[in-house]
């Protein structure tokens, strides 16, 4: 039997201890806080647990049909008419028991393809899909009853259901439709047209190799062209749709034929207003179709209580199709429909509701004061909202949905922070939002707190209670640090301190520019925050830092693919400075080729596929008469450079510095030989596990690399307040944050650093060989950007914080730190206060983001063995909470391995 690393280390007296601060009890420990949703929402959530991720071509079909019919028209109008046609013809489905209605497709957890963005991955699968459809008919439909492991992922075809990308199910009869639609977009999609022109970039050849070697994870221009941004609900909430259509008509009359001094885009305003009007009419019809369906259901329902609920839904939908909402329920329903409407428009993940507890506060306050609603009723609606948000699926390729998103859609709800005039913005509705997050534990909306010293203790302790429920939310973000970043990045576009106070998180932990707008409800005025910037899911995404270092050590050659990825540097790397210098030089080559090629993809997107609905919602498109592509948004400098694997890169540089350059215990050649041979181990894929401790020696291994491997593992590691390692991190961060600003987005704005891993540390770890820190080939990188590598933070959380904060986090859009804590360590009110103190200390030290998994690692191991018992188990990955069963094994292994703190 092959020897495992964990056994080898035991023999050497250097156990890989994945616990810190004590020893966890032998028995499984459950989470301390446990509450249940209302029976209504429990039933709705239980349906979700049984629901398969399902896709249909309905929206796609109606969009495509009108788009073809409008051939030759102005592109904005053509796209708007197509969207309108799709909204008008979407089938409304209402599930009995729902109070909030509406969805992305006529399924509980539905989605649909966007071949106008990218059709390639359906076409590549065409034969396979069709053959699967034919073959699957022979199988028994009873198989569906055994479908469970993997949550709602349709990992294989069965009965009349065909699996696409191992994730979505589509009815067999729709497969020919999917391929027919895809064929009609060949050479016309954003993907295809963008690809045609990106090849004109001189450095395109390098870019292609960078993608093949997975130094970069994905192109952003046609995969997820929008998202990781904060939506803005203000205009429909304040004006209602009838008035917005009037405003479009007024805009048309004002600008038709008048460039008003703008000879490039002035004339485009007419087309934008007309396009906005068309989309708004489609949205109204879509709402009204739900009203009709509710009335129909009421007419065929005998149960008087259910009948009354359908009638209430009809009344609500009819009203908000035209007017400003009258009640909290109507306002919540409207925000949900706006949210789904935007998600219909594009392939999007990370469309975040933002500070919705502050947006909806006017209705909450007035309804409570008037006795129109109770807090219990509000809580019931908020729980329903959670179930609805969790049903959002994003249709994209497997590499994106599985490799990056772990099937999540990152609808991040932000709380706390400051008001426009600098006071605590936390309110009673946000307390109820947190309570709903405890009682109805679901993945979305994930919750974030903008931590500020002005926030009241009661609010902070409520958030801690939620943490202890083991939900993995809320995340803690540094309000002041985030505002500093915004002022630096968007100051040139006119951002003021007041604007910066409207800050919210888009996606996982992407600091996003927002503004305040004045809302009037029953003659009372309120300032509400909302998104005012472009997506931050765009730019250069994600660069594998350890893989770039690997390129330095291999002279630009990737052994896995056999490609000379980067131009050979032909340097001897005789000094540490030369090594680091080459790392930076290679990194800049990678960023440069990705920035230029992605700029072209996004340019095609903005010309062919610009958003209309999302544009009209965000300041200042309606005022300016310009959509996103013409810089209608208030803030446009949102493109970024995302990194992955920072911790392993820093640890590897530290090991190289100590072992090769400072102490000279090994020559560079000896180190390279050990890395090339994976220190005598099998690859992670061969072992079938992606955590370090489970790795096994090759059968033919002679022990030749044991000593160097032990030294690499023993070399100083990030997270220990170490004088060798921390300066390496500081140097890297200062260079990285500065370097990103040298690159320009297609909008002529400087890019910036974004340091989150999402799930890419699994896929990018899988494609990277052994690293000088002792990590073995194919194993998952450390999560996030500031987290320590599992088992290597041996001086406690405060030492980890010191290391993480050795640089100025406000230079970057974010940084990311995840901690795993055993439930016993934070038990009781004393434990809650300790956890809050821990959080505060990181925020006060200048850390940007902190997130907890309050879970017993043994529970996770048991869940890997018995997933059928853990359908509702939530864990924090890296910026988002996900159901355990929907996460791929590389990430599961990494979460199991994270250091578990037994005390704080």
């Amino acid at each position: 039997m092959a020897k495992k690393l964990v056994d080898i280390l035991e023999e050497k007296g250097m156990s890989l201890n994945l616990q810190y601060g004590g020893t966890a009890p032998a028995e499984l420990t459950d989470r301390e806080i446990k509450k249940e949703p209302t029976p209504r929402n429990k039933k709705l959530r239980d349906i979700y647990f049984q629901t398969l991720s399902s896709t249909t071509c309905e929206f796609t079909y109606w969009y495509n049909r009108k788009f073809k019919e409008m051939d030759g028209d102005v592109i904005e109008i053509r796209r708007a008419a197509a969207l309108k046609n799709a909204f008008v013809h979407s089938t409304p489905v209402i599930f009995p028991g729902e109070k909030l209605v509406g969805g992305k497709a006529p399924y509980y957890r539905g989605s649909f393809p966007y071949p106008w963005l990218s059709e390639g991955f359906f076409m590549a699968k065409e034969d396979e899909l069709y053959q699967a459809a034919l073959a699957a008919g022979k199988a028994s439909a009873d198989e569906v009853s055994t479908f469970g492991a993997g949550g709602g992922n349709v990992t294989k075809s069965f009965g009349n259901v065909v699996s696409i990308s191992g994730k979505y199910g589509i009815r067999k009869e729709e497969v020919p439709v999917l391929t027919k639609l895809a064929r009609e977009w060949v050479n016309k999609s954003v993907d295809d047209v963008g690809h045609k022109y990106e090849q004109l970039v001189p450095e395109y050849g390098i870019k292609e190799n960078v993608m093949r070697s997975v130094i970069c994870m994905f192109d952003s221009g046609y995969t997820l062209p929008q998202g990781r941004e904060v939506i803005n609900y203000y205009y429909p909430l304040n004006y209602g749709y009838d008035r917005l259509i009037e405003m479009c008509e007024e805009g048309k009359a004002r600008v038709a034929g008048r460039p008003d001094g703008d000879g490039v885009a002035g004339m485009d305003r007419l087309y934008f207003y007309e396009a906005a009007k068309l989309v708004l009419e489609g949205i109204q019809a879509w709402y009204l179709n739900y009203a009709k369906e509710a009335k129909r259901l009421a007419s065929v329902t005998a149960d008087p209580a259910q009948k009354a609920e359908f009638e209430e839904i009809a009344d609500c939908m009819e009203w908000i199709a035209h007017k400003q909402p009258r009640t909290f329920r109507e306002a919540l329903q409207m925000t949900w429909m706006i949210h789904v409407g935007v998600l219909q428009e594009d392939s999007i993940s990370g469309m975040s509701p933002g500070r919705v507890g502050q947006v909806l506060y006017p209705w909450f306050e007035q309804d409570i004061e008037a006795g129109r609603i109770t807090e219990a009723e509000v809580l019931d609606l908020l729980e329903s909202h959670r179930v609805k948000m969790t049903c959002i699926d994003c249709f994209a390729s497997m590499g994106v949905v599985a490799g990056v998103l772990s099937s999540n859609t990152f609808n991040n709800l932000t709380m706390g922070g400051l008001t426009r005039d600098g006071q605590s913005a936390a309110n009673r509705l946000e307390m109820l939002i947190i309570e709903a997050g405890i009682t109805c534990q679901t993945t979305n909306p994930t919750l974030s707190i903008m931590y500020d010293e002005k926030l009241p203790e009661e609010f902070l302790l409520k958030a801690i209670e939620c943490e202890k429920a083991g939900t993995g939310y809320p995340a803690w973000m540094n309000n002041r640090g985030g505002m500093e970043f915004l002022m630096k990045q968007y100051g040139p576009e006119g951002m003021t301190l007041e604007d910066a106070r409207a800050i919210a998180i888009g996606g996982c932990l992407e600091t996003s520019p927002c503004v305040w707008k004045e809302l009037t409800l029953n003659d009372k005025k309120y300032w509400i925050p909302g998104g005012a910037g472009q997506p931050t899911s765009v730019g250069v995404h994600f660069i594998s830092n350890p893989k770039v270092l690997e390129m330095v050590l291999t002279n630009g050659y990737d052994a896995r693919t056999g490609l000379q990825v980067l131009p050979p540097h032909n340097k001897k790397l005789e000094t540490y400075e030369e090594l680091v210098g080459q790392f930076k030089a290679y990194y800049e080559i990678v960023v440069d080729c990705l920035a230029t090629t992605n700029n072209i993809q996004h340019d095609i997107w903005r010309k062919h596929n610009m958003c209309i609905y999302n544009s009209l919602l965000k300041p200042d498109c309606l005022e300016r008469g310009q959509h996103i592509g013409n810089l209608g948004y208030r803030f446009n400098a949102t493109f970024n450079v995302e990194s992955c694997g920072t911790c392993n890169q820093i640890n590897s540089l530290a090991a190289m510095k100590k072992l090769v350059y400072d102490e000279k215990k090994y020559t560079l050649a000896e180190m390279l030989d050990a890395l090339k041979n994976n220190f005598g181990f099998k690859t992670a894929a061969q072992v079938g596990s992606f955590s370090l401790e489970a790795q096994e020696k090759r059968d033919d291994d002679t022990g030749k690399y044991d000593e160097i491997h032990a030294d690499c593992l023993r070399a100083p590691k990030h997270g220990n307040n170490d004088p060798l390692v921390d300066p390496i991190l500081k140097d890297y961060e200062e260079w990285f944050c500065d370097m990103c600003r040298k690159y320009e987005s297609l909008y002529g704005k400087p890019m910036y650093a974004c340091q989150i891993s999402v799930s890419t540390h699994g896929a990018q770890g899988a494609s990277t060989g052994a690293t000088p820190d002792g990590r073995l080939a194919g194993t998952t990188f450390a999560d996030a950007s500031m987290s320590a590598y599992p088992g290597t933070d041996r001086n406690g959380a405060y030492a980890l914080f010191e290391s993480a904060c050795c640089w100025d986090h406000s230079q970057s859009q974010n940084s990311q730190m995840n901690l795993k804590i055993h439930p016993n360590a934070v038990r009781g009110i004393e434990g809650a206060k300790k956890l809050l103190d821990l959080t505060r200390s990181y925020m006060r030290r200048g850390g940007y983001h902190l997130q907890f998994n309050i879970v017993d690692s043994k529970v996770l191991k048991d869940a890997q063995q018995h997933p059928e018992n853990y359908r509702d188990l939530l864990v924090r990955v890296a910026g988002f909470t996900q159901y355990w069963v929907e996460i791929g094994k590389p990430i599961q292994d990494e979460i199991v391995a994270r250091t578990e703190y037994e005390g704080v």
Partner: protein
Amino acid sequence: MTKLNHTDCRNYIPIDVAKGMCHAHGDKIILADGDTCPQFEALPKCKFCKNFTDVDDKGIGCCEGFKVKDWTYADLKAVTCEHFVK
């Protein structure tokens, strides 16, 4: 025409590609491909529409209901279609 199933019925509320609720039977969860019952009421779909012609063996045919004709498919729901004719 292929054999009808629950997805062709107005009382069926689709949860996902494999199952849904039957509103005529107390919103009980049923498999999509099960046999229809006496309370079956046809859901408006292209395959039940007079404007749907020239259907091929994959269920794709022509929609003649709109001013501009185009292809469509048998199982497209037509609940919201202004030109659906039973």
